[in-house]
């Protein structure tokens, strides 16, 4: 067995994350152009062309939660005036900002520019908070999303081209703003380099996700998948990011070829909707792993990974137009389509050979959570997919109720096990 290869993605990911934070720490001491951005629509391709350092406050908040430090930061924000019902990601970040960037990974630099998208409305409010705290320029890039249940819009069609032109126009305005803030002229060759790296990352990521259709699955999407997804954001459009994804694909192919799974015996395969509970990350995963269950797929890896799940093919001969085109496509097919995902979820269950779906509704994120209970009702009724609905949070440890969660999870697996027995008896 090639021990070097197995687990390399996690080890390299941790190392690269540390290097990234070290770089941010250095910038906090010696300021250089820095942009605060979000995982859904980071505009990394444009920012790389200007050598902006990129800060993902969502990732900062998540890391505080995983390290069980979030509550201290939440308290700071609540003392400042934010309600207990406000998004915990926002509040943990406000706690960081109020402490002049103090974070367990080092000091987060102040922003020269903040960029949000409408893929999450709380992003827009978050941008406004940064504007007030730092007085820096803000840019909210509007990405027209999927309009309705049966909405289809293809490049070349009038409706799509209207959206594409709007996004391209905004990109040109963003580029002008970046020029002003960085003091540099826009170099389209630099943009094309970043886009080429994204092409490579997206192709490998799409292949990696598909490799999880194998039994056993080579990775747990809500476990190790978190590191991989973080790399998609933090290193999007960089040679390091492209190399990382290529190496990760090699690792997963190696595991699949040798039937190496992520736990000793894979008894259940699950599709996850929503993120894990990060303040109790290990325990959350154990609730499922203790039953021999692995999360093999999740739309979380689509939208929170920046929409690279379906692959991206930037046409480098028409970079700006192509960038706008792909932004619209990913907005409509990997992000905002989460509101209308019920039939696609059923399809994922089939393709990833999942036994059921776990909806984890998190108080902080109404974007991903509002429709979950309804989607669960639909998918059970229409597609006969066994689905579990649980609630907690992704940042706030106060929303965790282990006994209640465990009862529901255990009952779900008992039902799944019984269903398997019945299916086996019926020869299905």
């Amino acid at each position, binding site marked *: 067995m090639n021990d070097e290869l197995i687990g390399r993605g996690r080890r390299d990911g941790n190392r690269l994350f540390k290097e990234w934070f070290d770089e941010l720490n250095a910038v906090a001491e010696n300021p250089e152009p820095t942009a605060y951005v979000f995982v859904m629509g980071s505009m990394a391709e444009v920012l790389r062309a200007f050598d902006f350092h990129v800060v993902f406050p969502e990732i900062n908040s998540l890391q505080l939660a995983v390290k069980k430090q979030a509550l201290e930061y939440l308290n700071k924000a609540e003392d400042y*005036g934010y309600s207990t019902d406000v998004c915990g990601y926002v509040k943990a970040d406000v706690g960081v900002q109020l402490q002049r960037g103090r974070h367990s990974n080092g000091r987060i630099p102040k922003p020269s520019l903040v960029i949000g998208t409408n893929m999450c409305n709380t992003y827009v409010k978050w941008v406004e908070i940064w504007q007030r705290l730092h007085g820096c320029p803000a840019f909210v890039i509007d990405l027209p*999303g999927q309009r309705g249940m049966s909405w289809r819009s293809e490049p070349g069609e009038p409706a799509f081209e209207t959206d594409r032109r709007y996004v391209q126009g905004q990109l040109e*305005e963003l580029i002008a703003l970046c020029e002003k803030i960085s003091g540099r002229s826009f170099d389209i060759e630099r943009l094309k380099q970043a886009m080429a790296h994204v092409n490579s990352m997206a192709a490998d990521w799409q292949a990696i996700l598909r490799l999880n259709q194998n039994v056993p699955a080579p990775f747990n999407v809500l476990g190790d998948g978190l590191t991989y997804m973080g790399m998609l954001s933090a290193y999007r459009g960089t040679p390091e990011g492209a190399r990382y994804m290529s190496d990760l694909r090699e690792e997963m192919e190696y595991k699949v070829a040798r039937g190496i799974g992520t736990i000793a015996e894979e008894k259940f395969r699950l599709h996850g909707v929503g993120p894990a509970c990060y303040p109790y990350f290990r325990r959350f995963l154990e609730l499922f792993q203790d039953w021999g269950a692995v999360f093999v797929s999740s739309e979380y890896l689509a939208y929170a990974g920046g929409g690279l799940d379906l692959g991206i093919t930037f046409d480098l001969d028409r970079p700006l137009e192509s960038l706008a085109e792909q932004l619209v496509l990913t907005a409509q097919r990997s992000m905002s389509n989460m*509101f209308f995902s019920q039939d696609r979820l059923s399809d994922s269950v089939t393709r990833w050979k999942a036994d059921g779906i776990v909806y984890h509704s998190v108080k902080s994120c109404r974007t991903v959570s509002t429709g979950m209970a309804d989607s669960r009702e639909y998918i059970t009724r229409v597609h006969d997919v066994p689905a579990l609905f649980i609630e907690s949070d992704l940042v706030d440890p106060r929303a965790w109720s282990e006994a209640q969660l465990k009862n529901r999870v255990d009952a779900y697996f008992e039902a799944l096990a019984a269903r398997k027995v019945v299916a086996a008896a019926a020869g299905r």
Partner: protein
Amino acid sequence: MSIAAPSGIDELLETCTALCADFTYPAVKRWMEQHPGGKVVGHFQVYFPEEIVHAAGMLPLKVMGAGDQIESRQADSHIGSFICSICRSSLELGLSGRLGMMSAFYTHPICDVARNLAGIWGRNFPGQPAEILYLPQNANSSHAAGYLSAEYGRLQASLEKMGGTAVSVDALNRSIAVFNENRRLLRELYSIKRTSPWLLSAREAYALTRAGSVMQREEHNEILRRALDALPERPGRKQDRVRVVFEGGFCEQPPLDMLQLIEEACYVVDDDLLIGMRWLTEDVPDDTDDPLLALATAYLETSSYSPVQHDDRKPKEEMLLARIEASGAQAAILAAAKMCEPGMDEQVAYSRALEARKIPYLMLEFEEKMSALERMRMEVETFVESILFD
């Protein structure tokens, strides 16, 4: 109940107040009786270009929850526990069949819950096409008006398909004129609130405004005209009361009893209640060749503010300060609906701006369906007394 011709101002107000709490939608039903085969197009808070629906010969219906009037029997199993009440009760209206007369439903990217509502609606009411009208969140882009105009064109095309007839430029311009008149009358109503709040309580102004959400605007205009004619003659004396601005009613609506308890302690001289109906602050040109562009431009350029629209030219706290100053208010009530992320976020910005200007404020949290108002009454009374005896 007759809505068409209530005689005096008191009867008029009584009728409009009753409409706020009647989720059998009598005004809508009456319109449908008068327009056999007519289509009703529902739209969620906050702003919707109703002129386009009007021009298509259809009735726009603002869906804004059910207040404290109906029990949530089915919606709870479709919506998580930390979602705002207006979303929950709007869905309950649908699941209980009360909105069965709608031919389509539109929501907007105003918040994460509202966008989700399109999916929830689509899954539960396949006979009512549900779509998101993507109002722009980059109001500062020079491309926003053109994009929005095209989005309005998409809406118009959907309505034309639904109704089977084309919507002409002339029809759109005529509808814009009707709505201009409506907005002018509402501005006049709010002017009375600011200058003579003893003639018109916040609750009454709210009921008069809200009536327009369930009826055709020509009819609403008639109601407003009658009210405006009668109000100056209304008996009432100026009292020495604290003047406040109420902020936080842009989407989920506070209970009428909450408005009442506030106005029992002070004059509410301005507010953002149902701001979507008053979003456009000036007349929209009604004689252009491109009325959709005129509407889109007005949405972006001559419009009010709310926590659900980002516009660098309109920092919300600056806009609130301007509202306070323009209305001669001494203080503000900063309300937010429970679980409303945009509203709760904005409360912090508002409160800090008011603190910096030493303007007294009171923060309140509400739900459309709340019964224990005594504690809130005490808070409001204490707040007012602290100003009076400062």
